[in-house]
């Protein structure tokens, strides 16, 4: 791991020194960039966070903030060219994922780390039966017989609540509804007994009642099987309902991190605060105007040394243009990257 000045400080802030043993995943100062004709896109610009075994961590942010790229970086699924992980380290279960060979990495993907993507139609192979989708992973990673793999596939479909699983095994993805396909994705992700699941917008394409079914299922299964989960989403409601810890990303960086109650009830970064104020809530009285965030997210090829949020920030000062703030602790387990964090707060409370 690179022991830069910033990263040591962030490490201390995360309390990693205090509880170094219990982490399943430790990401340190990860940078992923895309080298395009328009310039270098700093999609992930030095992020650091941990995931404990069995914990559900949410990475939340708007389009283009780097949340998906950071997840793809963990799996080393960044298309190269144009993308490349340029620095940092990703320690997973004692292994540095960035130091593994491609063959070793293939063993990790699908076996130790399961994946669930947004679009179940494009992430399932349209010409394979449901049975083959699941057994392929099992045979590849666990070296089991066809018959044993089939038994396991059946068991998994039962586990994820697919009715009439015998019949479903023989069907193809196009026979299934969106919610059903996402259940198959979950069955595949869990089939090899992973320690971590990365779910990238797992329910964004689904209707709300189906979304609730899938999220409840994921929550139940990860809890019962003790699987940790990184859930990547833009939906602040989903995060509030399901996450233990929350990382808020903006312009390629984590700008605030804490447990769900800290983030929602005591936000210490102006972006988090503004984001919470801009969503309509159906449990609150009507008739109040929403408070949008003015302007737009920055162009990631043109980031300067200052804080990326300052053009849209109501707390910005001259210092914000001079240097980007680093993550510092505001209360135990809660960190924020803002020079003015002492001034930030829910003065006229969201709640």
């Amino acid at each position, binding site marked *: 791991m690179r022991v830069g000045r910033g990263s040591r400080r962030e490490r201390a802030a995360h309390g990693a020194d205090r509880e170094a043993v219990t982490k399943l995943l430790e990401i340190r100062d990860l940078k992923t960039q895309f080298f395009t004709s328009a310039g270098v896109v700093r999609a992930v610009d030095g992020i650091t966070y941990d995931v404990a075994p069995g914990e559900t961590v949410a990475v939340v942010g*708007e*389009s283009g903030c780097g949340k998906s790229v950071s997840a793809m970086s963990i799996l080393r699924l960044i298309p190269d060219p144009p993308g490349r992980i340029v620095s940092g380290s990703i320690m997973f279960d004692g292994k540095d994922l960035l130091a593994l060979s491609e063959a070793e990495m293939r063993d990790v993907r699908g076996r130790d780390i399961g994946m669930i993507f947004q679009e179940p139609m494009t992430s399932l192979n349209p010409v394979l039966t449901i049975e083959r989708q699941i057994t392929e992973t099992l045979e590849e990673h666990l070296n089991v017989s066809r018959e044993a793999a089939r038994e396991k596939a059946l068991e998994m479909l039962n586990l994820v609540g697919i009715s009439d699983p015998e019949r479903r095994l023989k069907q193809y993805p196009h026979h299934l*509804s969106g*919610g*059903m396909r996402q259940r198959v994705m979950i069955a595949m992700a869990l089939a090899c007994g992973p320690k971590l699941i990365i779910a990238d917008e797992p329910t964004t394409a689904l*209707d*709300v*009642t*189906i*979304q*609730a*079914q899938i*999220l*409840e299922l994921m929550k139940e299964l990860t809890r019962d099987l003790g699987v940790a989960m990184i859930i990547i989403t*833009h*939906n*602040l*409601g*989903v*995060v*509030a*309902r*399901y*996450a233990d810890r929350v990382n808020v990303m903006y312009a390629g960086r984590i700008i605030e991190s804490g447990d*769900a*109650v800290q983030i*929602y*009830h005591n936000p210490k970064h102006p972006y988090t605060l*503004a*984001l*919470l104020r*801009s*969503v*309509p*809530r*159906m*449990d609150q009285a*009507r008739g109040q*105007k*929403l*408070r*949008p*965030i*003015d302007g*737009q997210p920055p162009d990631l090829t043109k980031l300067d040394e200052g804080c990326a949020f300052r053009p849209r920030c109501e707390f910005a000062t001259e210092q914000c243009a001079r240097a980007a703030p680093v993550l510092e602790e505001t209360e135990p387990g809660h960190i924020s990257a803002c020079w003015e964090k002492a001034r930030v707060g829910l003065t006229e409370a*969201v*709640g």
Partner: protein
Amino acid sequence: MNEGSAAMVADGGGDALVRVRDLKMYFPVTEGVLISRVVAHVKAVDGISFDIHKGETLGLVGESGCGKTTTGRCILQLETATDGEIWFDGQELNKLSKAEMRPLRQRIQVIFQDPYSSLNPRMKIGQIIAEPMMVHGIITDRNERDARVRELLELCGLNPKFADRYPHEMSGGQRQRVGIARALAVKPEFIICDEAVSALDVSIQAQVINLLEDLRDEFGLTYLFISHDLSVVHHLCHRVAVMYLGHIVELAETEELFGNPLHPYTVGLLEAVPIPDPIVERKRAHQVIKGEIPSPINPPSGCVFHPRCPKAVDGCKINMPEFREIKPGHWVACTEV
């Protein structure tokens, strides 16, 4: 639903700008390549009635395939309804000829969901906004029209210089503002917003919602706001109709519907929406509606919701419940309420 109740849905009094009565839209399902024959019908909309008053925003919510978009398209006369009546300001739209419909099209506009596919990529923003004015012959002088385009851009929070740009040079939020400017160009009275903010990020979504509200107040616009996002509907709409599989199952004032939902589907739908507050979430009931939405080709008998309904009794399998006014302004189609 029976005819008698359909005629009475004119609740709340006032003058209805839009009046929909027992609207049905069935799409044929065909089979065969050379000789195609109709083998079934998709009952996208299966007998719905509602009014929209002047200056009101009516929300139409439901999940995919419930018929909410088809309802909007029928009002716009983009589909020829199978049955039923659609009235706009005293004229029955489905009885009008194309020529008679034309002046009305100017008064009814639409904003679509996808700001990427609803703007012609080969036209400049200025041309896109000017086109409806030319079609309807509103401002014939070119300079005046350009001035109006700039005015509309500013009204929608865009730099007037954007008139010379192409859609691909703009972000999703900016494109959606262009879509709104285009709809406003012909000074409509009634705008159908079909998932108009659904594709946008939350911070940008809030900007566009505020814009829609400001325009409503400034020009006294009437909206039909079609959306699957209940939080946005709660914020923006005066009354809300909940659709399921081609039927309106519940209709009430927004506070009433969200505070006192009566139809089991509405109850489940509201519980399924996560609220962005972890403390509130821990206290909430999370009764998940089981099963999936059945096919509208062969919908369940009786009440279409009965296979998923936690309160269903034997009778629900036989008769579609009457859409009845359970208290003033609160309509529900369920016998077990």
